[in-house]
Each structure stands twice: as structure tokens, then as C-alpha cells.
């Protein structure tokens, strides 16, 4: 076994070895020069073990993050999808957990063999659950008592932030019904070929270590976008048809721990 120390930097080793694994070229001398080994288990043979495993690990990451897409397609077809997506998109982030970030877009191009029109939406929805779960904590939550404490004079110009785990997911197909069927072990409903003229929006958020989701109507979605943009609460509330509706939404958001970062004039 060779024991000579190479003077390669860590960055160079990572770059060269990653390239060989990603391209499936374990004999690449730029990678094998960094690796110890001889005889039957020389550098290329050792790199080959990892280059064979690499696409499987990518598949496993996608598999874990998209349980309902797996149920819908079946293991074999999902494996083919992971292969095709891995080839087309590659893993571009140091975290394997980020690999699925482009799957919805990939599916939206209806790649060969994956023509079912709601696949992209399902991937988008499942990815939102993952993102929400992994989003940073919000810090101090804003309660209704905090908002009430502002009083009528300061309330209109005050603003809140949405917790990082709060995501608005536009969906062109009825993914909720699809997920419900798949989770119940029932046959998947047929997907409509036509997209909805106006995408429905689901909100996804996290409380503690649990992720929730529910549909939101257009006024609430508009209000949430305004809140996210840091608009004053008066503008956020104006997205609703009535004061009562605005109050009810703010109460829900506070109770569901979606609000943080209260800024009061």
C-alpha cells in the first residue's frame, strides 16, 4: 500500500473525486491519484465501489423525501425516475438532502415514461414538506396578545414576518385528493389532463417537529404574500373582504406559530 503523502488540497481532492463519482469514471487519473491502494484493490477499484453506490444513494434520498410519489409510480418506476433525474440534474449541493429540489421542475417537462400530468405537482408538494421541516427556526413567535398589545394606533403600521417554515405551494392539480388516496392505500384518482386556470394554493408550515398543510383561499394567500414581503399589517388585513376575516386569519396564523419578527412603529 502506498503511504506517500500527496500535497493536494482538500478542495482539490473533493473536486476530483466528486467528479469521478458523479460521472461514473472511477479510472479517471485525476481522482485516482489521490487514493491509496494497489493490486486487485487499487485506486480505481476503490473508487468504483463508491461510483456504483453513488446513484443508489441519490435514489435513496429522493425515495425517502417523496413517499407518495413512490406509491404512485411503484418502486421500479421510481428507480428509473431517480436515475433519469440524477443524470439530467445531478447533485449540486453538498447536502444530499437538497438533491430533490429540482425534481418537480424535471417532471414538469413530462420526461419520457412520466407523462401523468400531476406528477410535478405531487413532487412540488412533497418537496415543500421537506423544505418546511428543514427550515430554520423562527425565533420568538408573535401571539395574538402581542398584536392586541399594539393598540389601534400602532397596529396598522406594524409588520410581522412569516416563519421560514411557512411555504405557499401553488398546485395546478388536486394533489390533496391524490395524497389522501395514496396514504389510505386506495387507487390514485385519475389526473385531469388540463391544468386549472387558477392554481390552488396550499400552505405548509411546521410547529415543533411536525409539518402541517391546508388549502388557502386567494385572499389569505394574498395576505400571506404581503406579510412575507414585510408590508404593514393594514395592507395585510386589506387583502381580506372583511375585518372579521382578517382577524380570523391573523388568529389562525398566530395560533399555528406562523408569525415572528414583530416590528412596531
Amino acid at each position, binding site marked *: *500500500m*502506498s503511504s*506517500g*503523502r*500527496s*500535497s*493536494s488540497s*482538500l478542495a482539490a*481532492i473533493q473536486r476530483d473525486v466528486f467528479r469521478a463519482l458523479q460521472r461514473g469514471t472511477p479510472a479517471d487519473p485525476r481522482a485516482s*491519484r*489521490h*487514493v*491509496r*491502494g494497489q493490486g*486487485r*484493490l487499487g485506486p480505481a*477499484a*476503490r*473508487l468504483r*465501489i*463508491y461510483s456504483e453506490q453513488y446513484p443508489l444513494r441519490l435514489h435513496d434520498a429522493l425515495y425517502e423525501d417523496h413517499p407518495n410519489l413512490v406509491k404512485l409510480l411503484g418502486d421500479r418506476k421510481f428507480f428509473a425516475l431517480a436515475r433519469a433525474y440524477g443524470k439530467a440534474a445531478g447533485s449540486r449541493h453538498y447536502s444530499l438532502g437538497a438533491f430533490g429540489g429540482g425534481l418537480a421542475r424535471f417532471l414538469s417537462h413530462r420526461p419520457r415514461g412520466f407523462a401523468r400530468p400531476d406528477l410535478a405537482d405531487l413532487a412540488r408538494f412533497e418537496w415543500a414538506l421537506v423544505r418546511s421541516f428543514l427550515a430554520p427556526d423562527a425565533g420568538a413567535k408573535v401571539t395574538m396578545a402581542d398584536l392586541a398589545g399594539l393598540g389601534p394606533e400602532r397596529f396598522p403600521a406594524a409588520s410581522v414576518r412569516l416563519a421560514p417554515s411557512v411555504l405557499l405551494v401553488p398546485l395546478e392539480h388536486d394533489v390533496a385528493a391524490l395524497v389522501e388516496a395514496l396514504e389510505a392505500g386506495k387507487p390514485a384518482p385519475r389526473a385531469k389532463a388540463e391544468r386549472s386556470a387558477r392554481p390552488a394554493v396550499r400552505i405548509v408550515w411546521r410547529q415543533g417537529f411536525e409539518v402541517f398543510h391546508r388549502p388557502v383561499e386567494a385572499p389569505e394567500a394574498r395576505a400571506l404574500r404581503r406579510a412575507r414581503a414585510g408590508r404593514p399589517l393594514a395592507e395585510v388585513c386589506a387583502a381580506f373582504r372583511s375585518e372579521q376575516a382578517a382577524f380570523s386569519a391573523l388568529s389562525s396564523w398566530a395560533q399555528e406559530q406562523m408569525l415572528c419578527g414583530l416590528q412596531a412603529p
Partner: protein
Amino acid sequence: MLVQEALGRQILLENVSSYLTYQADALTEWEFLSEIARRADCGILLDVNNIYVSARNHRFDPLAYLDGVPADRIGQFHLAGHSDRGAYLFDTHDGPVCAEVWKLYEEAVRRFGAVSTLIEWDEGVPPLGVLLKESRRAAEHEARVLHRGRRAS
């Protein structure tokens, strides 16, 4: 530290099975693992099968690994089966623990005492009775070492 703070408890870091080392390596794996555990103030989950697999693949003495990790940080042992692929061993968790790994497990128990032990068998999972038998075997190996230790003292 952040993970441990969020969970409110110490985590255990597990040693891997590996098939490759670098020309530029400055530390052995056990030195690296021990240093990470020390800096993070976390424990170590010692996978005895992984030590054996890596020792064969990289031709090091597995006892040196056991001697090189801090006894006070070992929080659990893992045992598993592996596959012999001719030029190397591959960690597959698909069969019984082999005789050499049982022997190494006894060495681990001798050094670190009665530590919680888990049999990993997640591919080609056999009937429960086979798994329970494997688990009982671990207990028997542990008891043999600890009993022998008590008699010696």
C-alpha cells in the same frame, strides 16, 4: 452542539464502513472519530462490523481501532453481517454476524464493558426467531467476557 441542544441529549456518532483512504490522510479513522467526538462532546456508536470490514479493506489491525477510541464515550455497539466480494468486504446487513466479528465484539466488551448492543439486519430480513437467536448470541458473548473478567479479578 446545536443538534444536541435541540434534542436535549447527547448523540452518538457512528463509525462507517469504508473502502477508500486518501494519500493525504493525516489521521487514522479512529483518531479522526475520537477528535470529532471530543470537540462535539458527543458519544460514539461503535459499529464492530464496520471496524472489521474497514480493517480488512485497508489492512489495519482492528484492535488498534478499539484501543484508539475513548472508552468513556462509547454508548452503543452495532453488529451486522457483511459480504465478501473477493477483493474487499462490503457492509450489507444481510446475514448473520461472522465468527471474526463476534471475536472482535468480545474484545470490544472486554475494553468497554456492558454496552447496549444492536444487531443490524435490514436486507433479506429472516424470521424473528433467527434475529432473536442472533441477539441472544450477542448477550452470551458479552456474558462470557464479563464473567471471565469477574473470575480473573
